[in-house]
């Protein structure tokens, strides 16, 4: 199996799906000639030409709206919003239009729209380029929200997203762009949306971790294993709809659960998991579900703040130990 970076996994997914289905196209700021602000669409303009790979003006509302309208007219658009922090400029098209079109019109239109948004949490770029906003879109019915944590997951999920007849918010973390992994060389390699992945099996504690936090949870599990604490790490991969069956089964086994996320605890991912698991597995739990998240502040400029604010492996280890105490 060839080894690919997270960034090339994304490019490959788009290239394969564009080759497979000529209704698929890509638009966004700097996606064509420059090959993507972060290089995540290199080669696509050459491969598919300017009709299907286009640079847009800095007009986030219409970037998404173009996708909505083109999808209603039978295309399968991929639109890129450079940073998820720009959500506030296009949320109407996402939440009121893309998410509701199939529903309002009683199923007369499909909405096969993929909205790729980069996350730059913990890259020190400052308050407008550091936000984990998956919880906002996950609160909107009619959207699927996907957040891959490895190159293989990125490829398989993006291909599924492009083939999905519903709007999918696809959150790419640019800090992971250079991570490498072996990926099946199969043009029909797909990872299902809505299915969590047990990234490590364990018996004592369930750690639910998403995005950047998955690798840290796995590192923490390694360290805790040395002390005989067996950690099961679950990566939901899809933030909405969340695969609570897999998580509940794990927690019923381990009786303890920690949720680790880059999104704020308040009204965030951790609360959603804690509430639902607290309900589904209440009588199996030995301890309350704990949440580990950055404190409820904006993200100032600079790595030293990012590192201080965001959960790291040490913090996960400590939180798991606390749960075991």
């Amino acid at each position, binding site marked *: 199996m060839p080894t690919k970076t997270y960034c090339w996994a994304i490019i490959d997914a788009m290239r394969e799906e564009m080759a497979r289905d000529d209704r698929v196209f890509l638009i966004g700021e700097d996606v064509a000639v420059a090959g993507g602000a972060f290089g995540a669409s290199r080669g696509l303009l050459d491969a598919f030409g300017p009709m299907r790979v286009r640079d847009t003006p800095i007009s986030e509302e219409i970037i998404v709206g173009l996708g909505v309208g*083109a999808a209603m007219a039978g*295309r399968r658009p991929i639109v890129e919003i450079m940073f998820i922090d720009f959500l506030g400029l296009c949320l109407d098209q996402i939440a009121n239009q893309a998410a509701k079109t*199939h529903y309002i019109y009683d199923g007369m239109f499909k909405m096969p729209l993929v909205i790729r948004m980069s996350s730059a949490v913990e890259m020190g770029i400052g308050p407008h380029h550091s936000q984990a906003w998956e919880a906002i879109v996950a609160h909107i019915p*009619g959207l699927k929200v996907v957040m891959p944590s490895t190159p293989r997951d990125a490829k398989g999920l993006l291909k599924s997203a492009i083939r999905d007849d519903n709007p999918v918010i696809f959150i790419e973390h640019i800090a992971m762009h250079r991570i490498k992994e072996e990926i099946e060389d199969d043009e029909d390699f797909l990872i299902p949306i809505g299915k969590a992945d047990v990234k490590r099996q364990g018996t004592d504690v369930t750690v639910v971790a998403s995005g950047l936090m998955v690798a840290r949870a796995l590192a923490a599990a390694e360290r805790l294993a040395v002390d005989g604490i067996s950690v099961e790490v679950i990566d939901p991969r899809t933030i909405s709809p969340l695969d609570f069956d897999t998580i509940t089964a794990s927690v019923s086994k381990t009786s303890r659960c920690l949720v680790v996320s880059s999104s704020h605890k308040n009204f965030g991912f951790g609360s959603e998991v804690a509430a639902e698991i607290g309900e589904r597995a209440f009588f199996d739990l030995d301890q309350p579900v704990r949440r580990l998240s950055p404190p409820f502040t904006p993200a100032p400029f600079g790595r030293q703040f990012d590192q201080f604010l965001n959960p790291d492996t040490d913090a996960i280890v400590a939180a798991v130990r606390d749960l075991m105490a």
Partner: protein
Amino acid sequence: MTQDPITLYRSMLLIRECEAQLNDLFAKNVFPGYIHSYLGQEACAVGVCSGLNDTDYVVSNHRGRGHYLAKGMALKPMMAEMLGKATGICGGRGGEMHAADPALGILGGNGIVGAGMPIGAGAALAAQMDGLGAVSVVFFGEGASNNGAFGETLNVAAAWKLPLIMVCENNLYAEMTPFVQTVGQPDVAARATGYGVASEIVDGNDVLAVRAAAGRAVDRARAGDGPTLLELKTYRWGGHFEGDPRKYRTRNEEAEWKARCPVARFRRHLLAEVGVEEDRLVTLEAAVAAEVAEAVTFALDSPLPAPETALLKVFA
């Protein structure tokens, strides 16, 4: 698609009659929710849509019945949709601000002012990619032209030479606020030039003038020469919605605009210029009234959708 004058008149009548009957239902307290009446603007929808094919797209707004009917939406399911009935074209879940028919290129209404413009541009982009000469038309009010989506749409459509026709129905008011009080320059069309978009200001109560201008815009779009902004100067006879006491304007102003009634004006034209016999029009008028009455009865007699259907179709 050429249409004979009688067909145009019929289309305007249909809208006129629908609006009248819906207002009547409202007065009788049997209409659920708000009615955003299209009375007075009939020439806009008909003038524009009469030059379109079924493969052309139309994106509507909150004041959409005129657009739906002019683009050919079937009367009964449309009427039932307005009343939120199970027999409605969206099963009653769209309601007064939302109806669509993909087979006719009708891509829905909207509850969000301005949101249709980017969507219309998206349909135009799809049409451009298809390369079959289809065009996309987006209808919006002059109030919507103050929303950010307007500038973004003008610009993208111009940059990409999209086959998009932006139809601004300038009826002078946005809800209770006169347009002139919210702008520094009262012609919406004047904004097009700066973005490199062609534009025309048209008497929106003259169906033939609208039709001609729309025809030029459609030709330009089909030829690959890009977008046009049409500003149709018109007036909504009713309030923003039925029941609005219209304190922000005078009854006198309303009377003046009613004197410029687009339907009556075209009727006079048919009689005087085209030489249609009045009998023929009277027959037609009765037929349309009957057809609409039948649709209203159909809608009233139709059941509400089962509440549990609300749980369906969140996803495809």
